Each structure stands twice: as structure tokens, then as C-alpha cells.
């Protein structure tokens, strides 16, 4: 969908020469709009910029002048101290492992289920679909106690599986896939079936390769969601070497007390991976949200 980038400027739409007064009001409006947008966009970047600026200031300077922006002696000391004191490499690795595991499992299972609901015919298919639909209204956080008890009795606390498994049944992912599969021409499936391909083969060799937009949308959302999840890993992980990045970062506070350069350095380090993902896939992420409205 390139519409966002190629859409013509609405301010210049009047191709028939408009009356002068209207052109003026058009121009005034554009000026107000642009001014507001730029002012707010800059305001929105202040916290990020300030964190970055503070993280490279020497510790004494932050103490004497906490709200200063610039330093004559930029230093990466705060970053070094974070790496030495915390378990940052572990947290990065744990976040990557749990996010990737969850994403792969979710994409496979949700797409399989969506394919069954969209393309195959069986009794109770509609009932299964309605039951899934109801699942969208169950707020996962409300179920944390029984989920925790189940994992505890299965001996999965402080393990990757403990973080991963409860996040796999992502109903929204099924809906994104189903919506996409519903749009695939029936003839394509029928042709594959007529050639003797089984359902599983039709799914894997015909449908999945042409469903890249849905796969990438779900991949990005599940990945970002799991990476940023705080409450669940907070519950199931107590071992510092098993913590994910968001949970680990909050323990930095306890380690350091108040040194703000370190706090901001850890905030920057926590922000970098996802900001990089976002910069790379900005279009996909934005379109994925727009297309599905998931949160």
C-alpha cells in the first residue's frame, strides 16, 4: 500500500483557479497545520533527546546541573558501568530468544488455524470461529493468577517456556491471517486441490508464500509485543540471568539508586533495538496497525 506516500497534497487540490479568498484561507490553514505539527513533533522528541544527551554527560556534571543539555566532555562511562554492573547481555539474549520463540510458534499455529477456518469445511467450524472471536474480549492480564499457577505446577517458572507459552494463543493473529486468507481467490486453492495437493501442502506451498504481508504484520506485532511485555515476565522470572530486558531494566534502578546518567543510558540501551526495528520496518508496522487495528 503506497497510498500514504503518493497521496497528493490536499492543499493543492483546487485545479480550477479558486477565488482568491479561498486560496488565502487554504494557505492560512496549511500554515497553522504545519506549524502545530512541527512544534508538537519537536516536543515529542524532547524526552528521547534528553535521555540521549544525559546519558553521555559525566556523572558530576549531571549532579551539579541535572537539567543541562550539553556537555563539553561527552563520555560513554555510564554505558560501561551499566554493562559491568547489570546483566544486560543476558537480558538482551533472553528477550531475543523469548520473542523469536513466541513469534515463530504464534505465526505457525495462528496461520494454520486461520487456514482451517477460512478454507476447509467441517462441522462446528462456525462455532469454533465464534468461540475464538469471544477470546478477543478476554484481557490476558486478568488471567495472570491461574496462568501462573499452571506454569508453576508444570515447573516452568524461570524458564523460556514459562515466558513464551501463555503468549502463544494470540487471537488477534488468527484474525489477521483469516482476513487475509479470505481474500485469496477460491480458484487458486481449488486448482491446487485438483492437482492432488493435500490441505497441509496447499497451506504450506501455495497459501503461505503469497501471504507475506500478513506474515510480516503478525511477526512484527507479536515480536514487539513480547519484547515489551513487562507484567508476565515479571511474574514468572525471578532469576536475574533469566530476566528479559524490560524486567531487568527496572532492577537497574535498585542497583544504582539515583545516578541519572546510568538510568538514561539503560533507557537508551533498552530503546535501541526496537527503534532500529521500527526504523527498518516503519511502513510495514504502520500499515499493519492501520490494517488490523490491533493493540
Amino acid at each position, binding site marked *: 500500500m503506497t497510498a*500514504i506516500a*503518493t497521496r497528493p497534497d*490536499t*492543499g493543492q*487540490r483546487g485545479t*480550477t483557479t479558486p477565488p482568491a479568498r*479561498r486560496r488565502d*484561507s487554504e494557505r492560512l*490553514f*496549511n500554515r497553522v*497545520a*504545519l506549524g*502545530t*505539527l512541527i512544534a*508538537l513533533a519537536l516536543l*515529542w522528541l*524532547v*524526552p528521547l533527546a534528553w*535521555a540521549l544527551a544525559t546519558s553521555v554527560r559525566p556523572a558530576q556534571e549531571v549532579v551539579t546541573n*541535572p537539567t543541562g543539555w550539553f556537555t563539553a566532555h561527552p563520555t560513554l562511562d555510564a554505558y560501561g558501568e551499566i554493562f559491568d554492573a547489570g546483566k544486560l547481555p543476558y537480558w538482551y539474549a533472553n528477550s531475543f530468544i523469548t520473542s523469536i520463540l513466541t513469534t515463530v510458534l504464534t505465526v505457525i*499455529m495462528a496461520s494454520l*488455524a486461520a487456514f*482451517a477456518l477460512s478454507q*476447509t469445511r*467441517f462441522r462446528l467450524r462456525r462455532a469454533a470461529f465464534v468461540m475464538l472471536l469471544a*477470546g478477543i*474480549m478476554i*484481557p*490476558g*492480564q*486478568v*488471567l*495472570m*493468577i*491461574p496462568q501462573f499457577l499452571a506454569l508453576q505446577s508444570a515447573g516452568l517458572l524461570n524458564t523460556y517456556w514459562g515466558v513464551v507459552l501463555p503468549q*502463544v*494463543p494470540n*487471537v488477534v493473529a488468527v484474525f489477521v491471517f483469516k482476513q487475509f486468507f479470505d481474500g485469496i481467490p477460491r480458484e487458486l486453492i481449488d486448482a491446487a486441490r485438483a492437482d492432488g495437493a*493435500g*490441505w*497441509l501442502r496447499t497451506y504450506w506451498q501455495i497459501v503461505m508464500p503469497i501471504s507475506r504481508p500478513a506474515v510480516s504484520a503478525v511477526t512484527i506485532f507479536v515480536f*514487539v509485543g513480547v519484547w515489551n511485555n513487562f*507484567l508476565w515476565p515479571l511474574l514468572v522470572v525471578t532469576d536475574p540471568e533469566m530476566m528479559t530486558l*524490560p*524486567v531487568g*531494566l*527496572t532492577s537497574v534502578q535498585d542497583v544504582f539508586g539515583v545516578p*541519572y546518567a546510568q*538510568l538514561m543510558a539503560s*533507557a537508551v540501551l*533498552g*530503546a535501541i533495538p*526496537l*527503534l532500529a*526495528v*521500527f*526504523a527498518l520496518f*516503519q511502513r510495514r508496522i*504502520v500499515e499493519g496497525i*492501520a490494517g488490523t487495528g490491533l493493540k
Partner: protein
Amino acid sequence: MATTTAPSSTSSRRDRWAGPGMLLPFALFYLVFLVGPLIYTVVAGFFETSLLKSGLGDFAGLSNYSAVLGDAEFWRTLRNTLWFTVLTTVPLVLLSLVLALFADRFVRGRWFIRFAFFAPFVLPSAVVSLLFMFIYADQLGLAQEVVKWFGVDTPPSWLGDPDWAMISIAAATVWWTIGFNFVLYLAGLQDVPREVHEAAAIDGAGPWQRIRHVVVPMLGRTTTLVTVLQVIASLKVFDQIYMMTSGGPDGSTRPSLQLIYDTGFVEGRVGYASTVSLLLFLVILFVSLVWFALVRRAEKEN
């Protein structure tokens, strides 16, 4: 799976099980981690279940319900949650609408606008909380400094004053999540046909009138979607409050989800916490159902 042409009887039998078979892995996870826990929550609410003892514990009848409903702290956390929902939903809907309406007029530089508003949305809540604890810090935070520029001599303690704490957290939340609604509105604006704009312009409508009388009414469905998703998300608030104030000062920001967390995991009163969970679930369910009803009606009207 066999790819050679099988006799039709076995192939139709295989057909019949293909769908359920492919649904099964997801369905198992769904049952184990969503349906099962939901049933457990309903059941545990009727027992004196404790985290310290295995099993459901003694049957309690409706005593958990009467305890929760008679607990001033339950009502206070619910009030805090609703207050947070109001404080975030109003600006997150109105401001994102205005921003999207403005941004829709420009193509050049749009990536910058989108980046500025959307980048915070991908940050982990832990990072957002660290950032804003620094910004809101007493004496040395940016927020107090800025207010002093405007002539306020004694700025409030943003996170330490019970009157300000929730507002401060809500402001940070608006900063963090507005990009999502902004993008939804941008997408909604794509569906407003150019001809509508042009026709209104030819009729002599200025940009303000076109927005008020033509574009905003056409965004009705998007507004419903944005509002309800926002309300549901806000009712589940936990992370940033837990990290920035732990529910304080003096319980003034403690949300319902934290009451569940504290009574369930810290005090181990699972039965009580389950009852609170179920009541919060019912509130969210109610909002979701109202949303479905609204969407249904909007679809019929179209």
C-alpha cells in the same frame, strides 16, 4: 500427506479431519491458557484459595464477592483506573484526530512527523517509565524546570503529590501511545474519497468547514474503534504506574490490576484476587460488547 489421487472415499474422510486437525494446535493453547484460566478464575472466586496451599481451599460461597464489593480499596482502585482511563482517552482520541487531520495535508516530511509521534509507541514500558521518572523528578527534573520558566515558583511534586501523580502518569502515557491512534486515523483518512473534498471545496467550504462538516463525520467508525481500543487498553493499565509510583503516593494511583497483583501474588489471597479479576473482566467485557453493538449499527447504516 499423500499427493497421489486417492480413492474418493478416503480423501473425503481425510478432508473431514483436515480442518479440525489444523485448528488443533492453536485450539489447545487457547483452551489451556485462556479458557481454562477463565474458568479457574470464576471457580476460585467461590473458594478461599490461597497461593500458599495447593488446591482450591475451603468453599466460601459468595463471601469473596461481599468482601470485595464492601472493600473501599477495591472501589478506590476502580475509581483510579477509570480516572486514568478518562485522563488518557480524551487527549488520545482528540489530539490524535487533530494531528492526523493536519498531517493528512502534507506529503513531504511526513516520515518525520510519523517517526516523532510513533517511535515512542515501540518503546518498552520500562524505558518510558525510567525516562519520565527522570523528567518528573523533584528539584532536578525537566518538568519542574519548564514550569519555572513560565513563572511558577513552587512547582508541584509531579509524582509525589496525590493530586498530580495520576495526571503526570497519564501525560507520559499520552506521549507514549498517541502514535498508534494517529496511525489509525491516518488510515481512516485514506478512505475519505478525494471527490468529497473537491465537491465541498467547489461548494465554497473552507478547510475548517470541510473538516468539521465532511471529514470528521466520515471518520465516525474510526473514532469508535480508536475510542474503544483506547478505553480497553487504559482499563488494563499496570506497567507504567507500577514502575513510576508503585500505586502511590498513598494509593492515589493504584489501579485495579495492581490490586489483583498485590492480593494474589504478594498476599497470596487467590480467591479474593480472582473475584477482583472477574469483576474487572466484566467491566472490560461490557465495554467490548457496547463496541460490538456500535460497530454493528454503523455497518447497518452504511
